[in-house]
């Protein structure tokens, strides 16, 4: 196969930059990484054929700089740009600047990004197309009318940023008294994050499940709905775990969801990859939330059950290729689950933590896929998203996938910082999750900050610390290795030295 492009720039960092590079390598496309000063030593830079510096550490001056990115693409001779997710992936201005420079933007048309980036306008379009939307306003809130609008929508309500996404600019409001402070906070966060403080309100549906449909379209009018992903395990309205198929959907519900997703996509000119997000209420009715015009973090779940490489297809349809019948008619097989490894403390409100990775052992073997952005001893730049890696499993049934995920998480070991691994290891044994019976309140209602450390674990930790301190005191270094911690030829000697250390 002729490569779709000769050279492609990835306007992103971390695991998704590596993911896109892998697709490029397999397609025979040369890769260009970009990096801020905080990322000069990051994995994604080492993995690329070429690397371009785009600015200092703050994202606003690097990964969010349209100018710096387009200049890097021109300098490196890239024929296309893949934006990944986050950063500028849904920016119509970026897509327009890229196309204006004669470079192909791997994503939907700029006008579609603009139309669907306005979440309020998207709500109106979906409603007009006959798709049920979450009850709420379809026009912007203002301070004067907010009390009346929220009273109509009902409490608890959710304030959301029209330019929003990823849970930012979102605030829950319990009662009329809470409106002014919540509205001010939501506006401030939205303005800071998106440069647009427009806020609207939706009724807070609870209990509800978050289910989304993956779409893939070519430039010739073909559109595939590639099944759904269940994403109800969330904290701060951000996903932690995703699976496909959803344990909450009947076959009829699944088809209805795909139909609604196609209707939403039909309201705009569309090609490339996008995801239509819905809430599912306790009765299984679905309500349109928003359409994300980019690759999702959790795309791998769909790749596992369909056997398709979505990133490769994004690039191929961007180059004008047609989706073949095998893609348009693909049948999902088995069950896939993804868990996200974050540098966050699940015992302290999933607070992001800073620092540096120590040990880094990822699972492998049958049915396990790992997409990682860091490795042992990687520093964690505090400026960016704390996502470290995704562990995905695939098996022939949901129980088998959960068993595999348990096994995979038992093989996983991360040092240096607290991660959500402790939460994930709890989750895969949580009866509701195991039964498929959970909703977006799972983390808040069933986890909180997690159980206290069990007395047995405290005693075991004490035993380990005891042994560790004794070993640290007791092992004198052989003189020959004293000056050589980083010389390869000293490894064997050092290893032998360690073996002589007393075991208990």
């Amino acid at each position, binding site marked *: 196969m002729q490569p779709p492009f000769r050279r492609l720039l990835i306007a992103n960092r971390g695991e998704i930059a590596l993911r896109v590079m892998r697709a490029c390598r397999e397609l025979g496309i040369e890769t260009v990484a970009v990096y801020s000063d905080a990322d000069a030593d990051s994995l994604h830079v080492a993995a690329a054929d070429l690397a371009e510096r785009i600015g200092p550490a703050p994202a606003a001056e690097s990964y969010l700089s349209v100018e710096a990115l387009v200049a890097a693409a021109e300098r490196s001779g890239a024929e296309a740009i893949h934006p990944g997710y986050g950063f500028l992936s849904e920016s119509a201005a970026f897509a327009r600047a890229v196309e204006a420079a004669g470079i192909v933007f791997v994503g939907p048309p700029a006008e579609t990004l603009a139309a669907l980036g306005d979440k309020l306008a998207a709500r109106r379009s979906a409603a007009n197309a006959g798709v049920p939307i979450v009850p709420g306003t379809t026009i912007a809130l203002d301070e004067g009318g907010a009390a009346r609008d929220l009273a109509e929508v009902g409490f608890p309500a959710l304030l959301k940023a029209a330019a929003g996404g990823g849970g930012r600019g979102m605030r829950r409001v319990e009662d009329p008294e809470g409106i002014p402070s919540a509205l001010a906070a939501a506006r401030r966060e939205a303005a*800071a994050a998106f440069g647009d403080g427009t806020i609207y309100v939706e009724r807070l549906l609870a209990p509800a499940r978050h289910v989304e449909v993956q779409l893939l379209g070519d430039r010739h009018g073909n559109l595939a709905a590639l099944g759904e992903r269940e994403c109800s395990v969330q904290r701060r309205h951000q996903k932690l775990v995703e699976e496909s198929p959803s344990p909450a959907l009947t076959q009829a519900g699944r088809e209805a969801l795909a139909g609604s997703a196609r209707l939403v996509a039909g309201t705009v000119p569309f090609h490339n990859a996008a995801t239509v997000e819905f809430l599912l209420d306790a009765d299984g009715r679905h309500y349109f939330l928003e359409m994300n015009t980019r690759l999702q973090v959790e795309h791998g779940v769909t790749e596992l059950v369909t056997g398709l490489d979505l990133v490769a297809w994004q690039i191929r349809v961007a180059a004008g290729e047609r989706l073949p019948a095998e893609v348009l008619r693909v049948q999902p097989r088995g069950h896939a689950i993804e868990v996200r490894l974050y540098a966050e403390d699940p015992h302290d409100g999933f607070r992001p933590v800073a620092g540096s990775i120590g040990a880094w052992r990822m699972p492998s073997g049958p049915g396990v896929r790992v997409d990682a952005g860091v490795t042992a001893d990687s520093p964690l730049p505090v400026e960016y998203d704390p996502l470290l890696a995704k562990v995905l499993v695939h098996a022939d049934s949901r129980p088998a996938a959960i068993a595999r995920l348990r096994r995979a998480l038992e093989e996983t070991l991360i*040092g240096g910082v607290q991660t959500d691994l402790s939460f994930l290891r709890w989750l895969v044994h949580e009866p509701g999750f195991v039964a498929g019976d959970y909703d977006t309140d799972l983390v808040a209602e069933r986890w909180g900050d997690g159980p206290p450390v069990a007395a047995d674990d405290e005693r075991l930790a*004490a035993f380990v610390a005891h042994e560790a301190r004794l070993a640290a005191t007791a092992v004198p270094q052989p003189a020959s290795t004293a000056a050589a911690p980083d010389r390869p030829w000293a490894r064997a000697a050092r290893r032998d030295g360690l073996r002589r250390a007393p075991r208990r």
Partner: protein
Amino acid sequence: MSDLELRIADRPVDLAEGWTLTWLDREHGVVLLRDGRESKLALAEGVGADWVVTLDGRRIAVTATTWRERVLAEADVAARTHAGPTEVRATLPGLVVAVAAVRGAAVGEGEALVTIEAMKMQNEVRAPRAGRVATVAVSPGQPVASGALLVLLE
């Protein structure tokens, strides 16, 4: 046995019995634990008396102090009983986006003092106790390192 005392959250803790520990990777503190029924991977990271043990993905801070260290620590506590002002410091590096604290103002425990954005989240730094704001050390738009002084409470 040794004279080490093991504490978690400042409570003394007995050592688990019946386990063996094998080092798999000393550089990174990876250990294998066995009790004759099961085995599990764990981590032991630390220096001197201060260790973090990771079990099932959870980091547990453990102090392992010698008799000598305990005697010295008691003397240290005794010297500190004359309490002074409280320093409120940043726990994460980030960008100061709002400062609610006003010099000279009285604040209640839990009252918001400073908002710092880090890793895409806005975090409110709150007063650890009631008091009066003696110093405001930062202003909005200012980047702060982890551990940087934000506010001094009297």
